[in-house]
């Protein structure tokens, strides 16, 4: 009898767990709406943030002081964003603030970068491609091998599926000579062969030192970036922008964001004057032109927008946008005191997460538990109490499980 009861509980708990995931997932699919936040860009003419909001194909345009604009006014207020359209219309200004606008400079100084926590929280196969950074041809060519960098560096030849010992030793010795301490903590670079040029990889060694690793004329190029000890690198995103101003975006453990510039053979981190970014929950978006960068830092509840001077990355204006509460979150807070998910918007990994919403949602459990006390009169008193207590804890999923899994005792 005892074993039978244990098996009943196991089946009941299994069906409850399935319900804790499936019922909220169904409700979420039916009610989820994407958070509509206005598109924002800093106007180099007005020196204000301009917003474009779309509601059912209707656009509205306004600035951070509440002044509204027509579409025409909006387009001409953002010449560095709409330059193609304005050039076609013959409305592109020759200069802004006395600075002449060169089409080429306009193009190469365009920056577009987006950070999402899934960039960091994602599985990494641990193999990389090291391109020749000074290729003889105009475009990059596949080296024919991949490398791994953890306890040592090893190049694996694709044709033979064996380690290219000569090349591996060459790079291993160069790394050791440059002071690199194994094992590597992480390595980051852009593996895409279609990029305009190659700057290799940035790798954090066991001592927390950030190294630049690339291949120049078939030889290893290894340098310690010699960052200020105050900066503890947490993540690096290689960018390799068209104007070659910087290598990529560096994020430290305190949440500060930097660009890593080349400075006469040395490496200079330039901090963006924005609030710290939580790399595991926050999102960052940068849209830059040759005068200003518009930077958005989004958390779960709000979005901070910054206008930074492109040259110095110092803040010239800041605004805050409150994000609307998602319909799903409102419903979850009323129906499900707790529910199960396997996906996390901040990670590519699949894992069970138990979410607790609001105490007020417990009312649903209490009401269901009371109802269960009075219906199905054929049950024993003990069974009634058990069913109600179970519903009190597991709510809707608990009731469904009790209805599916019958206990005949």
């Amino acid at each position: 009898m005892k074993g039978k009861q244990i098996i009943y509980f196991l089946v009941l708990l299994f069906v409850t767990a399935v319900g804790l995931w499936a019922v909220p997932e169904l409700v979420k699919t039916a009610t989820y709406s994407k958070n509509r936040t206005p598109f924002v860009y800093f106007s180099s003419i007005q020196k204000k943030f301009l917003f474009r909001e779309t509601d059912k194909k209707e656009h509205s345009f306004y600035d951070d002081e509440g002044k509204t604009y027509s579409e025409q006014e909006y387009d001409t207020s953002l010449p560095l964003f709409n330059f193609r359209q304005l050039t076609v219309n013959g409305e592109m200004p020759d200069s802004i603030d006395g600075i002449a606008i060169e089409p080429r400079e306009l193009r190469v100084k365009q920056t577009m970068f987006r950070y999402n926590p899934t960039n960091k929280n994602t599985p990494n196969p641990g193999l990389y491609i090291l391109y020749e950074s000074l290729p003889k041809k105009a475009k990059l060519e596949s080296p024919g091998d991949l490398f791994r960098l953890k306890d040592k560096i090893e190049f694996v030849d694709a044709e033979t599926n064996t380690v290219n010992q000569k090349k591996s030793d060459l790079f291993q010795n160069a790394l050791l000579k440059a002071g690199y301490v194994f094992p590597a903590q992480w390595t980051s670079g852009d593996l895409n062969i279609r990029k305009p040029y190659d700057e290799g990889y940035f790798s954090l060694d066991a001592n927390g030192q950030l190294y630049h690793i690339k291949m120049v004329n078939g030889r290893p190029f290894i340098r310690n970036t010699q960052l200020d000890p105050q900066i503890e690198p947490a993540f690096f995103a290689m960018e390799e922008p068209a104007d070659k101003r910087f290598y990529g975006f560096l994020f430290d453990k305190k949440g500060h964001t930097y660009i890593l510039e080349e400075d006469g053979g040395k490496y200079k981190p330039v901090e963006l004057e924005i609030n710290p970014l939580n790399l595991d929950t926050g999102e960052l978006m940068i849209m830059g032109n040759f005068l200003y960068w518009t930077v958005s830092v989004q958390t779960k509840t709000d979005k901070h927008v910054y206008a930074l001077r492109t040259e110095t990355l110092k803040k010239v204006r800041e605004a805050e946008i409150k994000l609307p509460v998602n319909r799903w979150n409102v419903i979850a807070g009323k129906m499900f005191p707790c529910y199960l998910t396997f996906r996390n918007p901040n990670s590519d990994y699949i894992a069970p997460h138990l979410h607790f919403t609001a105490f007020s949602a417990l009312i649903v459990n209490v009401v269901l538990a009371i109802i269960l006390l009075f219906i199905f009169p054929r049950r024993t008193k003990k069974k009634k109490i058990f069913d109600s207590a179970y519903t009190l804890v597991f709510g809707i999923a608990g009731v469904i499980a009790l209805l599916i899994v019958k206990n005949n005792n």
Partner: protein
Amino acid sequence: MYKSLVYKEWIKTRSVIGVLFLIFLGVGIYSFMHISADIRLLGLVNLWEEAIQKDPAMFPYFKYLPLLAGVLLAITQYVPELQFKRLKLTLHLPLKDDTIVLTMLLYGFGVVLLLSFVTLALLLLGLSRRFPAEIVGTTFQQLLPWFLAGPAAYLIASWICLEPQWKQRILNIIPGIIALSFFFLRAKSGAYQPFDPYLTGLVIVAFSFAFYSTTRFKEGIQ
């Protein structure tokens, strides 16, 4: 007695096991032919680079095969038992009821496990001849939830097949299918790593489900 019981299960399932073996073998051979063709057409370097950048499925045809094997084997083993209540006769054998059910379950579970994991090992072994350890590891991460779905599907299908009441059987199918969908969530290779222990836990817990159905059968529920 155990030997006879296992032999009885073998008689019931040998044709299905044979068919499953041929399907797994055929799909395995076809998968390697496909990879060989890709190597010839695209070159191994490109395949390696694609594997680490685009995360393609190396053996996509195996996605639902272990699941199919689990379900088929459970149906072959237990549907005849429920027809004309033959299970009643089986449970009258001179062994404890739970021991009889456990032996039958272990037989089917063992077959699915063996078929799944020998195949998995052979696929990875074959891949390791032309691909580096990291890509083989990534492929293992990709295949593991699909191959764990085989034993899970067998145990869940056994729970459903041994259930004596049709209405309850349908009710069991709903959480059963939802639970099996956990093994097939769209994800990058390696993304299941933190979830694999939970899926293994689910397989272990699912071992008890068939006993719940046979208890109901013994209680005369129909």
